Protein backbone atom coordinates (compact mmCIF):
# COMPACT_ATOMS: atom_id res chain seq x y z
CA UNK A 1 0.00 0.00 0.00
CA UNK A 2 1.13 3.52 -0.78
CA UNK A 3 0.47 4.87 2.69
CA UNK A 4 2.45 2.24 4.46
CA UNK A 5 5.51 2.92 2.29
CA UNK A 6 5.52 6.47 3.61
CA UNK A 7 5.15 5.13 7.15
CA UNK A 8 8.04 2.74 6.66
CA UNK A 9 10.17 5.56 5.31
CA UNK A 10 9.43 7.77 8.33
CA UNK A 11 10.19 4.93 10.73
CA UNK A 12 13.41 4.04 8.93
CA UNK A 13 14.60 7.66 9.09
CA UNK A 14 13.73 7.77 12.76
CA UNK A 15 15.85 4.72 13.49
CA UNK A 16 18.75 6.13 11.49
CA UNK A 17 18.46 9.23 13.64
CA UNK A 18 18.23 7.22 16.86
CA UNK A 19 20.81 4.53 16.21
CA UNK A 20 23.12 6.23 13.69
CA UNK A 21 24.93 8.31 16.32
CA UNK A 22 25.94 5.13 18.14
CA UNK A 23 27.59 3.79 15.02
CA UNK A 24 29.37 7.11 14.57
CA UNK A 25 30.75 7.05 18.12
CA UNK A 26 31.99 3.50 17.82
CA UNK A 27 33.76 4.20 14.53
CA UNK A 28 35.30 7.40 15.87
CA UNK A 29 36.63 5.58 18.94
CA UNK A 30 39.07 3.68 16.74
CA UNK A 31 40.53 6.86 15.26
CA UNK A 32 44.28 7.49 15.36
CA UNK A 33 43.74 11.25 15.33
CA UNK A 34 43.90 13.43 18.38
CA UNK A 35 41.22 15.70 16.91
CA UNK A 36 37.62 14.59 16.64
CA UNK A 37 37.59 13.99 12.92
CA UNK A 38 35.03 11.92 11.05
CA UNK A 39 35.56 9.72 9.15
CA UNK A 40 38.82 8.94 10.97
CA UNK A 41 42.02 8.88 8.94
CA UNK A 42 43.42 5.74 10.45
CA UNK A 43 42.88 2.98 12.94
CA UNK A 44 44.20 2.68 16.47
CA UNK A 45 43.26 1.40 19.89
CA UNK A 46 45.09 4.19 21.71
CA UNK A 47 41.94 5.81 23.09
CA UNK A 48 40.81 2.59 24.71
CA UNK A 49 44.24 2.30 26.22
CA UNK A 50 43.93 5.84 27.48
CA UNK A 51 40.52 5.21 29.06
CA UNK A 52 41.98 2.34 31.03
CA UNK A 53 44.93 4.44 32.13
CA UNK A 54 42.97 7.39 33.44
CA UNK A 55 42.61 6.73 37.14
CA UNK A 56 39.62 9.04 37.55
CA UNK A 57 37.49 7.01 35.19
CA UNK A 58 38.10 3.88 37.19
CA UNK A 59 37.44 5.57 40.53
CA UNK A 60 34.23 7.15 39.31
CA UNK A 61 33.11 3.93 37.60
CA UNK A 62 33.26 2.17 40.96
CA UNK A 63 31.54 5.09 42.59
CA UNK A 64 28.70 4.91 40.06
CA UNK A 65 28.46 1.16 40.48
CA UNK A 66 28.32 1.33 44.28
CA UNK A 67 25.90 4.25 44.35
CA UNK A 68 23.69 2.54 41.77
CA UNK A 69 23.59 -0.77 43.62
CA UNK A 70 22.96 0.79 47.03
CA UNK A 71 20.28 3.17 45.77
CA UNK A 72 18.55 0.50 43.70
CA UNK A 73 18.52 -1.92 46.59
CA UNK A 74 17.10 0.69 48.97
CA UNK A 75 14.53 1.86 46.43
CA UNK A 76 13.31 -1.71 45.95
CA UNK A 77 13.13 -2.27 49.67
CA UNK A 78 10.96 0.83 50.04
CA UNK A 79 9.09 0.39 46.76
CA UNK A 80 7.89 -3.21 46.93
CA UNK A 81 5.60 -2.68 49.97
CA UNK A 82 4.22 0.48 48.39
CA UNK A 83 3.53 -1.30 45.11
CA UNK A 84 1.91 -4.19 46.94
CA UNK A 85 -0.35 -1.91 48.97
CA UNK A 86 -1.41 0.07 45.92
CA UNK A 87 -2.20 -2.99 43.83
CA UNK A 88 -3.93 -5.08 46.51
CA UNK A 89 -5.80 -2.66 48.71
CA UNK A 90 -8.33 0.07 48.28
CA UNK A 91 -8.22 2.84 50.80
CA UNK A 92 -9.41 6.43 50.98
CA UNK A 93 -7.04 8.98 49.51
CA UNK A 94 -5.30 6.37 47.41
CA UNK A 95 -5.01 8.70 44.41
CA UNK A 96 -3.32 11.36 46.49
CA UNK A 97 -0.88 8.86 47.94
CA UNK A 98 -0.08 7.45 44.52
CA UNK A 99 0.73 10.97 43.37
CA UNK A 100 2.80 11.45 46.54
CA UNK A 101 4.87 8.37 45.79
CA UNK A 102 5.37 9.23 42.15
CA UNK A 103 6.41 12.84 42.77
CA UNK A 104 10.19 12.24 42.56
CA UNK A 105 9.55 11.27 38.94
CA UNK A 106 7.86 14.59 38.23
CA UNK A 107 10.22 17.01 39.97
CA UNK A 108 13.25 17.76 37.76
CA UNK A 109 16.34 15.79 38.81
CA UNK A 110 18.43 18.93 38.81
CA UNK A 111 16.15 20.44 41.44
CA UNK A 112 16.21 17.27 43.55
CA UNK A 113 20.00 17.30 43.60
CA UNK A 114 20.15 21.00 44.24
CA UNK A 115 17.68 20.95 47.10
CA UNK A 116 19.41 18.02 48.79
CA UNK A 117 22.70 19.88 48.57
CA UNK A 118 21.26 23.09 50.04
CA UNK A 119 19.31 21.28 52.72
CA UNK A 120 22.20 19.17 53.93
CA UNK A 121 24.72 21.95 53.84
CA UNK A 122 22.41 24.24 55.74
CA UNK A 123 20.91 21.85 58.25
CA UNK A 124 23.59 19.26 58.86
CA UNK A 125 27.08 18.66 57.70
CA UNK A 126 26.43 15.20 56.31
CA UNK A 127 28.96 13.84 53.84
CA UNK A 128 28.08 14.63 50.26
CA UNK A 129 28.26 10.93 49.44
CA UNK A 130 25.24 10.32 51.63
CA UNK A 131 23.39 13.03 49.73
CA UNK A 132 24.26 11.34 46.45
CA UNK A 133 22.91 8.03 47.73
CA UNK A 134 19.70 9.61 49.05
CA UNK A 135 19.11 11.59 45.86
CA UNK A 136 19.51 8.52 43.70
CA UNK A 137 17.26 6.47 45.95
CA UNK A 138 14.58 9.16 45.69
CA UNK A 139 14.51 9.16 41.88
CA UNK A 140 14.60 5.36 41.65
CA UNK A 141 11.80 4.93 44.15
CA UNK A 142 8.85 5.72 41.82
CA UNK A 143 10.54 3.61 39.16
CA UNK A 144 10.57 0.51 41.35
CA UNK A 145 7.00 1.15 42.48
CA UNK A 146 5.80 1.33 38.89
CA UNK A 147 7.61 -1.73 37.59
CA UNK A 148 6.79 -3.91 40.59
CA UNK A 149 3.14 -2.76 40.47
CA UNK A 150 2.93 -3.77 36.82
CA UNK A 151 4.11 -7.28 37.57
CA UNK A 152 1.90 -7.56 40.69
CA UNK A 153 -1.16 -6.66 38.62
CA UNK A 154 -0.54 -9.71 36.48
CA UNK A 155 -0.46 -11.98 39.49
CA UNK A 156 -3.81 -13.47 40.46
CA UNK A 157 -4.64 -12.47 44.06
CA UNK A 158 -6.61 -15.72 44.32
CA UNK A 159 -3.35 -17.66 44.48
CA UNK A 160 -2.28 -15.68 47.50
CA UNK A 161 -5.70 -16.22 49.09
CA UNK A 162 -5.32 -19.92 48.44
CA UNK A 163 -2.04 -19.88 50.34
CA UNK A 164 -3.67 -18.08 53.27
CA UNK A 165 -6.60 -20.52 53.25
CA UNK A 166 -4.08 -23.34 53.44
CA UNK A 167 -2.61 -21.89 56.61
CA UNK A 168 -0.03 -19.27 55.58
CA UNK A 169 0.05 -16.00 57.43
CA UNK A 170 -0.30 -13.07 55.02
CA UNK A 171 3.37 -12.28 55.56
CA UNK A 172 4.41 -15.85 54.87
CA UNK A 173 2.16 -15.97 51.81
CA UNK A 174 3.84 -12.83 50.51
CA UNK A 175 7.31 -14.33 50.78
CA UNK A 176 6.37 -17.88 49.83
CA UNK A 177 3.92 -17.23 47.03
CA UNK A 178 3.93 -13.62 45.84
CA UNK A 179 7.64 -12.82 45.69
CA UNK A 180 8.69 -15.93 43.76
CA UNK A 181 6.01 -15.23 41.18
CA UNK A 182 6.96 -11.62 40.58
CA UNK A 183 10.66 -12.44 40.45
CA UNK A 184 11.06 -11.37 36.84
CA UNK A 185 9.35 -8.07 37.63
CA UNK A 186 11.74 -7.53 40.53
CA UNK A 187 14.76 -8.29 38.37
CA UNK A 188 13.42 -5.98 35.65
CA UNK A 189 12.91 -3.23 38.23
CA UNK A 190 16.42 -3.78 39.52
CA UNK A 191 18.00 -3.57 36.07
CA UNK A 192 15.98 -0.54 34.96
CA UNK A 193 16.58 1.31 38.21
CA UNK A 194 20.27 0.51 38.26
CA UNK A 195 20.80 1.71 34.68
CA UNK A 196 18.82 4.86 35.47
CA UNK A 197 21.07 5.56 38.43
CA UNK A 198 24.25 4.67 36.59
CA UNK A 199 23.44 7.07 33.74
CA UNK A 200 22.08 9.87 35.90
CA UNK A 201 23.56 13.32 35.60
CA UNK A 202 21.06 15.92 36.90
CA UNK A 203 20.77 14.57 40.44
CA UNK A 204 24.48 13.81 40.71
CA UNK A 205 25.50 17.17 39.31
CA UNK A 206 25.08 19.03 42.61
CA UNK A 207 25.86 16.07 44.84
CA UNK A 208 29.41 15.58 43.70
CA UNK A 209 32.46 17.33 44.96
CA UNK A 210 36.12 16.78 45.60
CA UNK A 211 36.71 13.04 45.62
CA UNK A 212 33.06 12.24 45.03
CA UNK A 213 32.04 12.01 41.39
CA UNK A 214 30.13 9.54 39.29
CA UNK A 215 31.29 8.35 35.89
CA UNK A 216 28.93 10.50 33.77
CA UNK A 217 29.93 13.58 35.75
CA UNK A 218 33.61 12.73 35.30
CA UNK A 219 32.98 12.35 31.55
CA UNK A 220 31.43 15.81 31.40
CA UNK A 221 34.35 17.28 33.31
CA UNK A 222 36.84 15.60 30.98
CA UNK A 223 34.99 16.90 27.92
CA UNK A 224 35.35 20.45 29.14
CA UNK A 225 39.12 20.21 28.91
CA UNK A 226 39.95 17.67 26.20
CA UNK A 227 38.67 17.21 22.67
CA UNK A 228 40.27 13.89 21.84
CA UNK A 229 38.35 10.64 21.17
CA UNK A 230 38.87 9.28 24.70
CA UNK A 231 35.21 9.88 25.43
CA UNK A 232 34.36 8.09 22.17
CA UNK A 233 36.13 5.01 23.45
CA UNK A 234 34.53 5.22 26.88
CA UNK A 235 31.10 5.86 25.34
CA UNK A 236 31.57 2.88 23.04
CA UNK A 237 32.30 0.68 26.02
CA UNK A 238 29.14 1.95 27.75
CA UNK A 239 27.06 1.47 24.58
CA UNK A 240 28.23 -2.11 24.12
CA UNK A 241 27.55 -2.89 27.79
CA UNK A 242 24.07 -1.37 27.48
CA UNK A 243 23.33 -3.36 24.32
CA UNK A 244 24.32 -6.57 26.09
CA UNK A 245 22.29 -5.82 29.21
CA UNK A 246 19.20 -4.59 27.32
CA UNK A 247 19.23 -7.51 24.90
CA UNK A 248 19.67 -10.05 27.69
CA UNK A 249 16.99 -8.41 29.80
CA UNK A 250 14.59 -8.26 26.86
CA UNK A 251 15.19 -11.92 25.99
CA UNK A 252 14.94 -13.19 29.54
CA UNK A 253 12.38 -10.82 31.06
CA UNK A 254 10.69 -9.00 28.19
CA UNK A 255 11.80 -5.78 29.81
CA UNK A 256 10.01 -3.59 27.25
CA UNK A 257 6.64 -4.36 28.81
CA UNK A 258 7.77 -2.72 32.05
CA UNK A 259 8.90 0.52 30.42
Amino acid at each position, binding site marked *: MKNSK*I*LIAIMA*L*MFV*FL*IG*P*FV*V*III*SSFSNDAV*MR*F*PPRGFSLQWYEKVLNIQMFQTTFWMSLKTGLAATFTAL*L*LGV*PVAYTNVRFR*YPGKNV*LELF*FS*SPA*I*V*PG*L*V*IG*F*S*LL*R*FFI*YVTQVPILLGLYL*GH*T*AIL*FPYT*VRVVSASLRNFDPGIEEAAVSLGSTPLHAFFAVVLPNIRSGLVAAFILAF*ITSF*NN*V*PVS*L*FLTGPGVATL*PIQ*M*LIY*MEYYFDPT*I*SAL*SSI*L*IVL*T*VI*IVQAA*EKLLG*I*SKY*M
Partner: protein
Amino acid sequence: MLLLGPGAMFLLLFFFSPLLFVLAESLRGAQGQVTLARYGEVLSDAQFRIVFVRTLKMALIVTPIAVIVAYPSAYLMTKVSAGKKSILMSLVILPLMTSPVARTYAWIVILGKYGIVNQTMGALGLFKEPARMMYTEGAIIVGLLQLFLPIMVLTLVSAMENVQEEVEEAALSLGSGRIGCFFRVIVPLSFDGLIMGVTLVFTGCITAYVTPAILGGAKVLTLATLMRQEALVLMNWEAATVIAVIMIATTLLLYNGLRLFKPRNLV
Protein backbone atom coordinates in the same frame (compact mmCIF):
# COMPACT_ATOMS: atom_id res chain seq x y z
CA MET B 1 -0.44 1.66 56.21
CA LEU B 2 2.43 -0.09 57.89
CA LEU B 3 3.65 -1.03 54.44
CA LEU B 4 3.61 2.54 53.19
CA GLY B 5 5.36 3.90 56.27
CA PRO B 6 9.05 3.47 55.42
CA GLY B 7 8.63 4.77 51.87
CA ALA B 8 6.55 7.72 53.01
CA MET B 9 9.05 8.59 55.75
CA PHE B 10 11.91 8.45 53.29
CA LEU B 11 10.20 10.78 50.85
CA LEU B 12 9.14 13.21 53.55
CA LEU B 13 12.62 13.41 55.04
CA PHE B 14 14.84 13.26 52.01
CA PHE B 15 12.66 14.54 49.20
CA PHE B 16 9.90 16.85 50.37
CA SER B 17 11.77 18.51 53.23
CA PRO B 18 14.67 19.62 51.01
CA LEU B 19 12.20 20.91 48.42
CA LEU B 20 10.25 22.86 51.01
CA PHE B 21 13.50 24.14 52.42
CA VAL B 22 14.53 25.46 49.01
CA LEU B 23 11.10 27.00 48.48
CA ALA B 24 11.34 28.71 51.88
CA GLU B 25 14.86 29.88 51.08
CA SER B 26 13.69 31.46 47.87
CA LEU B 27 11.10 33.49 49.79
CA ARG B 28 13.34 34.55 52.68
CA GLY B 29 14.51 38.13 52.80
CA ALA B 30 17.73 39.42 54.34
CA GLN B 31 16.03 40.04 57.72
CA GLY B 32 14.22 36.72 57.66
CA GLN B 33 10.96 38.17 56.37
CA VAL B 34 8.89 36.61 53.57
CA THR B 35 9.48 38.41 50.31
CA LEU B 36 9.23 37.92 46.60
CA ALA B 37 12.18 40.24 46.04
CA ARG B 38 14.46 37.47 44.81
CA TYR B 39 11.94 36.44 42.19
CA GLY B 40 11.72 40.05 41.08
CA GLU B 41 15.49 40.21 40.72
CA VAL B 42 15.74 37.04 38.70
CA LEU B 43 12.69 37.67 36.55
CA SER B 44 13.80 41.20 35.67
CA ASP B 45 17.26 39.98 34.71
CA ALA B 46 17.71 40.27 30.95
CA GLN B 47 19.90 37.18 30.68
CA PHE B 48 17.39 35.07 32.59
CA ARG B 49 14.60 36.20 30.28
CA ILE B 50 16.57 35.34 27.17
CA VAL B 51 17.41 31.91 28.58
CA PHE B 52 13.87 31.23 29.75
CA VAL B 53 12.34 32.15 26.39
CA ARG B 54 15.01 30.16 24.56
CA THR B 55 14.35 27.10 26.70
CA LEU B 56 10.61 27.28 26.07
CA LYS B 57 11.17 27.88 22.38
CA MET B 58 13.34 24.79 22.02
CA ALA B 59 10.78 22.67 23.85
CA LEU B 60 8.10 24.08 21.56
CA ILE B 61 10.14 23.07 18.52
CA VAL B 62 11.25 19.63 19.71
CA THR B 63 7.88 18.40 21.01
CA PRO B 64 5.83 18.75 17.80
CA ILE B 65 8.64 17.26 15.71
CA ALA B 66 8.78 14.33 18.11
CA VAL B 67 5.00 13.86 17.76
CA ILE B 68 5.11 14.02 13.97
CA VAL B 69 7.94 11.50 13.71
CA ALA B 70 6.83 9.21 16.53
CA TYR B 71 3.13 8.86 15.67
CA PRO B 72 3.51 7.19 12.28
CA SER B 73 6.43 5.08 13.51
CA ALA B 74 4.59 3.96 16.64
CA TYR B 75 1.46 3.23 14.62
CA LEU B 76 3.44 1.05 12.26
CA MET B 77 5.04 -0.72 15.21
CA THR B 78 1.62 -1.79 16.50
CA LYS B 79 0.86 -3.27 13.08
CA VAL B 80 3.91 -5.44 12.40
CA SER B 81 4.34 -9.05 13.51
CA ALA B 82 5.29 -9.79 17.10
CA GLY B 83 8.81 -10.76 16.12
CA LYS B 84 9.49 -7.56 14.20
CA LYS B 85 7.87 -5.50 16.90
CA SER B 86 10.16 -6.88 19.56
CA ILE B 87 13.23 -6.01 17.45
CA LEU B 88 11.94 -2.49 16.81
CA MET B 89 11.06 -2.03 20.47
CA SER B 90 14.56 -2.97 21.57
CA LEU B 91 15.92 -0.45 19.06
CA VAL B 92 13.78 2.19 20.77
CA ILE B 93 14.72 1.10 24.27
CA LEU B 94 18.42 0.87 23.59
CA PRO B 95 18.98 4.63 23.21
CA LEU B 96 16.76 5.23 26.21
CA MET B 97 18.95 2.99 28.34
CA THR B 98 22.23 4.35 27.08
CA SER B 99 24.11 7.03 28.96
CA PRO B 100 22.83 10.44 27.81
CA VAL B 101 26.41 11.67 27.95
CA ALA B 102 27.43 9.08 25.37
CA ARG B 103 24.38 9.77 23.21
CA THR B 104 24.88 13.50 23.22
CA TYR B 105 28.60 13.16 22.70
CA ALA B 106 27.87 11.56 19.32
CA TRP B 107 26.63 14.90 18.04
CA ILE B 108 30.04 16.44 18.64
CA VAL B 109 31.43 13.85 16.26
CA ILE B 110 28.68 14.59 13.76
CA LEU B 111 28.33 18.36 14.05
CA GLY B 112 31.85 19.30 15.15
CA LYS B 113 34.36 21.32 13.15
CA TYR B 114 35.81 18.16 11.58
CA GLY B 115 32.61 16.15 11.98
CA ILE B 116 30.60 14.21 9.41
CA VAL B 117 28.48 17.11 8.24
CA ASN B 118 31.37 19.46 7.67
CA GLN B 119 33.54 16.78 6.06
CA THR B 120 30.76 15.72 3.71
CA MET B 121 29.75 19.22 2.78
CA GLY B 122 33.40 20.18 2.33
CA ALA B 123 34.04 17.16 0.11
CA LEU B 124 31.01 18.06 -1.98
CA GLY B 125 32.27 21.62 -2.21
CA LEU B 126 29.15 23.00 -0.59
CA PHE B 127 30.95 24.54 2.37
CA LYS B 128 33.97 26.75 1.69
CA GLU B 129 35.04 26.46 5.30
CA PRO B 130 33.67 24.38 8.19
CA ALA B 131 30.35 25.70 9.42
CA ARG B 132 29.99 26.23 13.15
CA MET B 133 27.17 23.97 14.25
CA MET B 134 28.30 23.16 17.77
CA TYR B 135 27.20 25.51 20.55
CA THR B 136 24.07 26.59 18.67
CA GLU B 137 20.39 26.25 19.44
CA GLY B 138 20.10 23.97 16.42
CA ALA B 139 22.59 21.51 17.91
CA ILE B 140 20.68 21.42 21.20
CA ILE B 141 17.40 20.88 19.36
CA VAL B 142 18.83 17.93 17.44
CA GLY B 143 20.27 16.48 20.63
CA LEU B 144 17.02 16.88 22.58
CA LEU B 145 15.05 15.29 19.78
CA GLN B 146 17.28 12.25 19.79
CA LEU B 147 17.10 12.10 23.56
CA PHE B 148 13.30 12.25 23.82
CA LEU B 149 11.96 10.61 20.66
CA PRO B 150 12.09 7.11 22.22
CA ILE B 151 9.91 8.24 25.12
CA MET B 152 7.30 9.60 22.73
CA VAL B 153 7.38 6.41 20.67
CA LEU B 154 7.00 4.18 23.75
CA THR B 155 4.04 6.10 25.18
CA LEU B 156 2.30 6.18 21.81
CA VAL B 157 2.90 2.48 21.15
CA SER B 158 1.41 1.52 24.49
CA ALA B 159 -1.56 3.84 23.91
CA MET B 160 -2.26 2.52 20.43
CA GLU B 161 -1.86 -1.11 21.38
CA ASN B 162 -5.19 -0.85 23.15
CA VAL B 163 -7.08 0.26 20.06
CA GLN B 164 -8.96 -2.75 18.73
CA GLU B 165 -8.18 -3.75 15.18
CA GLU B 166 -11.91 -4.17 14.52
CA VAL B 167 -12.68 -0.57 15.44
CA GLU B 168 -10.33 0.51 12.69
CA GLU B 169 -11.94 -1.91 10.28
CA ALA B 170 -15.36 -0.60 11.23
CA ALA B 171 -14.21 2.92 10.31
CA LEU B 172 -12.86 1.67 6.99
CA SER B 173 -16.04 -0.24 6.21
CA LEU B 174 -18.04 2.90 6.94
CA GLY B 175 -16.09 4.84 4.36
CA SER B 176 -13.04 6.36 6.06
CA GLY B 177 -9.75 6.17 4.20
CA ARG B 178 -6.58 5.10 6.02
CA ILE B 179 -5.67 8.67 6.84
CA GLY B 180 -9.20 9.66 7.85
CA CYS B 181 -9.37 6.61 10.08
CA PHE B 182 -6.04 7.57 11.68
CA PHE B 183 -7.18 11.07 12.58
CA ARG B 184 -10.80 10.25 13.46
CA VAL B 185 -10.31 7.00 15.32
CA ILE B 186 -6.68 6.20 16.18
CA VAL B 187 -5.67 9.66 17.37
CA PRO B 188 -8.74 10.26 19.58
CA LEU B 189 -8.39 6.79 21.07
CA SER B 190 -4.70 7.25 21.83
CA PHE B 191 -5.10 10.85 22.91
CA ASP B 192 -4.26 10.20 26.55
CA GLY B 193 -0.99 8.63 25.45
CA LEU B 194 -0.29 11.61 23.24
CA ILE B 195 -0.84 14.02 26.12
CA MET B 196 1.39 11.89 28.33
CA GLY B 197 4.11 11.82 25.68
CA VAL B 198 3.87 15.56 25.07
CA THR B 199 4.08 16.23 28.81
CA LEU B 200 7.11 14.01 29.28
CA VAL B 201 8.96 15.38 26.26
CA PHE B 202 8.11 19.01 26.90
CA THR B 203 9.08 18.97 30.58
CA GLY B 204 12.10 16.86 29.67
CA CYS B 205 13.26 19.52 27.21
CA ILE B 206 12.83 22.27 29.75
CA THR B 207 14.77 20.52 32.50
CA ALA B 208 17.37 18.60 30.43
CA TYR B 209 20.89 19.31 31.53
CA VAL B 210 23.32 17.06 29.66
CA THR B 211 22.32 18.01 26.12
CA PRO B 212 22.54 21.81 26.49
CA ALA B 213 25.67 21.40 28.62
CA ILE B 214 27.51 19.51 25.89
CA LEU B 215 25.99 21.00 22.75
CA GLY B 216 25.32 24.53 23.98
CA GLY B 217 28.06 25.03 26.51
CA ALA B 218 28.32 28.42 28.13
CA LYS B 219 27.44 30.11 24.84
CA VAL B 220 23.86 28.90 24.54
CA LEU B 221 22.50 28.58 28.05
CA THR B 222 19.19 27.00 28.97
CA LEU B 223 17.38 27.03 32.31
CA ALA B 224 19.25 23.94 33.48
CA THR B 225 22.71 25.08 32.47
CA LEU B 226 22.01 28.59 33.74
CA MET B 227 20.99 27.19 37.11
CA ARG B 228 24.19 25.20 37.36
CA GLN B 229 26.25 28.20 36.32
CA GLU B 230 24.62 30.41 38.95
CA ALA B 231 25.10 27.80 41.66
CA LEU B 232 28.44 26.19 41.00
CA VAL B 233 30.33 28.79 38.97
CA LEU B 234 29.04 32.16 40.17
CA MET B 235 28.09 30.87 43.63
CA ASN B 236 24.92 32.89 43.35
CA TRP B 237 22.84 30.48 45.41
CA GLU B 238 19.88 32.82 45.67
CA ALA B 239 19.42 33.00 41.92
CA ALA B 240 19.86 29.23 41.56
CA THR B 241 17.23 28.67 44.22
CA VAL B 242 14.75 30.89 42.41
CA ILE B 243 15.45 29.15 39.10
CA ALA B 244 14.92 25.77 40.79
CA VAL B 245 11.50 26.86 42.04
CA ILE B 246 10.61 28.27 38.62
CA MET B 247 11.56 24.94 37.06
CA ILE B 248 9.33 22.99 39.44
CA ALA B 249 6.50 25.44 38.90
CA THR B 250 6.80 25.16 35.11
CA THR B 251 6.86 21.38 35.29
CA LEU B 252 3.87 21.14 37.62
CA LEU B 253 1.96 23.64 35.50
CA LEU B 254 2.58 21.55 32.41
CA TYR B 255 1.67 18.28 34.11
CA ASN B 256 -1.63 19.64 35.34
CA GLY B 257 -2.37 21.94 32.43
CA LEU B 258 -1.93 19.34 29.74
CA ARG B 259 -4.02 16.86 31.68
CA LEU B 260 -7.03 19.11 31.14
CA PHE B 261 -6.93 18.41 27.42
CA LYS B 262 -9.64 16.00 26.43
CA PRO B 263 -9.90 14.49 22.99
CA ARG B 264 -12.01 16.91 21.06
CA ASN B 265 -14.73 15.40 19.06
CA LEU B 266 -12.80 15.17 15.86
CA VAL B 267 -15.56 13.75 13.71
